[in-house]
């Protein structure tokens, strides 16, 4: 039983770490700043959520996993706010977005 939970949490954590790397590949590949922000939000949501949930599964139900939950909530509150402020400030700073460059 506990072995199964360890395996599941391992899958979660490693998928999360892979999601972070995919997000960073996206940051390198995307053509302009605003599209880079989309790639970065993969890191902030999927990476964070998967890794923290994996760690919570591993540690079980105690104060440690409450702290992990708090970390996740704080990250999920602050990072979109920072991304929003960043995008808004870039727009006001005169950074034009590239629109509809290559149609899918």
């Amino acid at each position, binding site marked *: 039983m506990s072995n199964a939970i360890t395996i599941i949490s391992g899958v979660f954590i490693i998928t999360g770490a892979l999601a972070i790397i995919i997000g960073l590949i996206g940051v390198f590949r995307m053509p302009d700043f605003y599209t880079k922000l989309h790639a970065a939000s993969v890191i902030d949501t999927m990476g964070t959520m998967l890794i923290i949930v994996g760690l919570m599964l591993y540690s079980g139900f105690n104060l440690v996993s409450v702290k992990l939950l708090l970390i996740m909530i704080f990250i999920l509150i*602050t990072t979109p*706010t920072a991304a929003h402020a960043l995008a808004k400030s870039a727009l006001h700073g005169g950074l034009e977005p590239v629109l509809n460059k290559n149609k899918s």
Partner: protein
Amino acid sequence: MEHHLVLRVVARLLIPLIMLFALYVQFHGDYGPGGGFQAGVIFAAAFILYGIIYGVDSLREVVHPGVVRSLAAFGVLLYAGVGVTGMLMGGEFLNYSVLSTDPVAGQHLGILLIEAGVGITVASTMIILFYAFARP
């Protein structure tokens, strides 16, 4: 930052949390990582966030610069005062064992008080620095 509605609302949520977390760090320095210095810095960070988002003038209305300066001095005074109290009660300077009948309880009390002194001084100094650097 005044027209950043999102920032203002999120700051409103976060500032009490940061302050409470700073106080948690302050009082749990005995058990885990942390202590007066770290707590003071985090506490000041909450005030600085307020100053950044609502403006330094609003921060001045919350804490008057004179009060901050007095508090910075008060922290050092508290630290030294604990030491001198130890001297008056028959020990050496900064020997907390004499503060209470039980040496271990005395040590605990002394550490709590001087950590509070460090925290107050550090937090006030950081806010003073912010006042000095951020032009109105």
